[in-house]
């Protein structure tokens, strides 16, 4: 399969995401001004501070030509993975419900956390049983997931909560310990923790690689 990784001015983790994708297929970088994604099968919207994020995280990136193309790709049901800033961008773009607010501590936080898999109904988590714990790092200043109560209820009912922080490990005050969510169809998934920084035991963990491999396997099936 072919992965495309978006690159905005101000992206930070795009090369790390490209590397992670290359471990589970072919990977290429997509410049934010490219309206045409070519023949990519899946897209990663990576972490960082797109356009500086001085206004509100992700608020400007959602208007980029590449994001228009991503919205079309998502509508076709192909896999889209948002990581950290990518999560914020996908929420701003209306491809995912909810919003990411400033951490409860009002400080940036970088640490390894455990995530519990809540749903296997996405291409990325299809091979992971619910309840499985993954060790993945977080690093963000605006990662507190928020959605109105009725939206949260609906998301839980629809199985749209895909990852929760393990008990006692919520690093930012997210509602219901939510770390990652998907759209109703399940093909658009985003999370604040960084699976692309968990693809090698040498740098901490290889649990994040499971998401990339999972998507590749789902597409091949």
């Amino acid at each position: 399969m072919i992965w495309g990784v978006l690159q905005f001015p101000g992206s930070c983790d795009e090369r790390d995401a490209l590397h992670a994708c290359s471990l589970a297929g072919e990977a290429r970088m997509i410049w934010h001004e490219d309206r045409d994604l070519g023949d990519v099968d899946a897209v990663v919207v990576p972490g960082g501070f797109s356009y500086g994020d001085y206004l509100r995280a992700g608020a400007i990136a959602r208007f980029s030509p590449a994001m228009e193309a991503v919205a079309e790709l998502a509508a076709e049901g192909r896999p889209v993975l948002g990581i950290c800033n990518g999560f914020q961008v996908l929420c701003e773009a209306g491809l995912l419900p909810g919003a990411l607010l400033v951490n409860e501590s009002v400080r940036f936080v970088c640490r390894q956390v455990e995530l519990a898999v809540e749903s296997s109904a996405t291409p990325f988590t299809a091979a992971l049983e619910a309840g499985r714990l993954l060790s993945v790092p977080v690093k963000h200043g605006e990662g507190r997931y928020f959605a109105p109560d009725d939206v949260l209820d609906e998301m839980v009912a629809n199985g749209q909560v895909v990852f929760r922080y393990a008990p006692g490990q919520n690093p930012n005050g997210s509602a219901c310990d939510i770390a990652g969510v998907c759209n109703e169809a399940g093909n658009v998934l985003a999370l604040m923790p960084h699976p692309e920084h968990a693809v090698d035991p040498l740098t901490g963990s290889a649990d994040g690689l499971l998401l990339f491999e999972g998507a590749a396997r789902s597409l091949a099936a």
Partner: protein
Amino acid sequence: MSVGTAKHRELGLTDAEYERICELIEREPNGVELAMFSLLWSEHCAYKHSRKLLRRLPTEGERVVMGPGENAGAVDVGAGYAVAFKVESHNHPSAVEPFQGAATGVGGILRDVFALGARPIAVLDSLRFGELDSSRSRYLLDGAVRGIAHYGNSIGVPTVGGEIYFEGPYEQSCLINAMCVGLAKQSEMVRAAAAGVGNAVVIFGASTGRDGIGGASVLASAELDSEDDSKRPSVQIGDPFEESKLLECCLELLGEGLLVSLQDLGAAGLTSSAGEMASAGGVGIEIDVALVPLREDDMEPFEVMVSESQERMLAVVEPADVAAVLKRCEKWQVGGAAIGEVTGSGRFRVLRDGEEIGDVPVGALVDGCPLYDLEPAEPEGWIYPNRRTVSDDLDGAGLLGALLASPNIASKRWVYEQYDSIVGSRTVRRPGAADAAILQIPESGKAIAVAIDGNGRRVACDPYRGTVEAVLECAQNLACAGAEPLGLTNCLNFGNPEKPAPSWQLERSVSGLADACEALGVPVVGGNVSLYNEGSEGPIYPTPVVGMVGEMPSAEAAAAVGVGFAGSPVTDDRSRRDQTIALVGPFAPSLAGSELAKLRGELDAGLPGVEIGSVAAAIEVVREAVRSGSVASAHDVSDGGLACAIAECAIAGGVGCRVDLDPLVEARGGSGESALFGEGSGGFVLSGERSALEAIGDDGVEVLMIGEPGGEEIAIDAAELSLVLPLSKARRAWESLGELD
């Protein structure tokens, strides 16, 4: 007295210096020229009180790719790659406005590294503040940490390590030193020297505004006083997004071979960058201020020439490539303009719309500043305050608890969790996991370790020995990661060099730095000097900060050994439980200058001598033991002495220990108390199988078997003093910095 001579004093030039300028240019300088001279002849740019001393430092080595004089030093790491690195201070701006001061400190050192064509892969910080019970110190700490986080996190360069000390003499003058490490393909590296008469001079990056006018002379080259708030407009404002685009743009331009030379705009802005490029290349340069993209269109020519607006670079480009360079700037949404050219005249000409408004010889501007000899005098005894903060009646366990909770020793997790330490996928050992940060270099199949050290209090006790210790400590930290030093960078933070005591400290310290580097065979590839760090209450502790880059054969070997004792029933299998703890090296502890002496208010001048050769031998055997994987843990003995080093290993490993220091007292003398809490160079706490630890002693290096890991308590016997501290209590004390909010 003419108007001109009154003005030069306002700008920080002495009468004699002004006369010298008139001699060199054979007339009185006009306003633009005077502004340019005042900045390039400031201490910050001209190193006029330190340049002579710095000639003592060894700078040659077979792995040196670039040495002092370039934007940063660089060493060969094989496979056609080089690691570039440099440490720089941003002390004075941070004392005035800590968030922007620290943020732009990071921004500035990043530019120094990517100006060579190296992609920044790591940042480390060395910070000094007054005691934490002062609200000003907490404000400065919070602001500086947020500023470093803001810039480093946003630009996607990991902050992988550093150190922080809290000491009274930094109350008025905090220190913010930032080190950047970058990786470059040697074939794409570029120097700062301008070359090629007729080539274009291109400025690119942010536009030029009125921020930071006179920062180098107003802030960095004079003592601070209580009116500092009025200097806030001299502090630059950082924009990491602008720099992120600038960084990518520069690396693309260099990758395509479109630049002849490149230099960042830092202190003294365009004047210093253009002047130094011309001086290094032995050419002349012409700049037309009307062509410089401005933020405010009514700026005076002198303001354009000295503005310290951040996120700007200056390049020399062949005329045929200018269009391609500007096109690349457009892609990255970075401003760019050709503003002048390289000439053969040897003169720095400033034009406005083609009309000359300044014309001085490059040599006079860049190298004409008189260099001063110091007039050092050793102060009598201890010149800094003493303050007792622990009670008399603490027993051994109480003392260990107090030391572990001392902000200088306690865990800095609260700080480093605010930094992205992993972006870039190179970080094999994150902050707190080992004595040095470890980064993998898949490009060469190897790994590097990086550490930064400098205990100002010990340098205050004895500037020569304290500085030797700082270099050894840094090398010991690398050894614990299995790394061999390739090069060293330093930042010399001292008080007013025009006063006898700080100048004596500076001179002795540079001697120590030179001797230690020579003995270890580590070349000094770059550095920075920050003087005038003092306020009305006197100078700071003399604080040489040294940063070292070391190499190890593979990232895998480094990752196998950490700080923590093996043997925890939770984390280790049975085979690793039969572990022994050894003290390796010629460590001869003394309470002089120690953290305990500080807490007791008993600091005094003087430190015991260090035998550099025997410490170097210990460093080598520890490095080999770690590389071979024959030991399970390695940690050097530093602040708080052996008891604290042992406690840190126990806390990190999640397992207690039983230790007997009688063999140490018998072998090296002293009391039980000094064995527990005394400090000094050359000590390593290693754990592993007994036979492997004994083998370390085969090379003649001192090895004492002092105990075993196990249990839930830290229990240490030392002659007259014994202590038992439950592991949970030790951990609570060590983590007591907690949240400072």
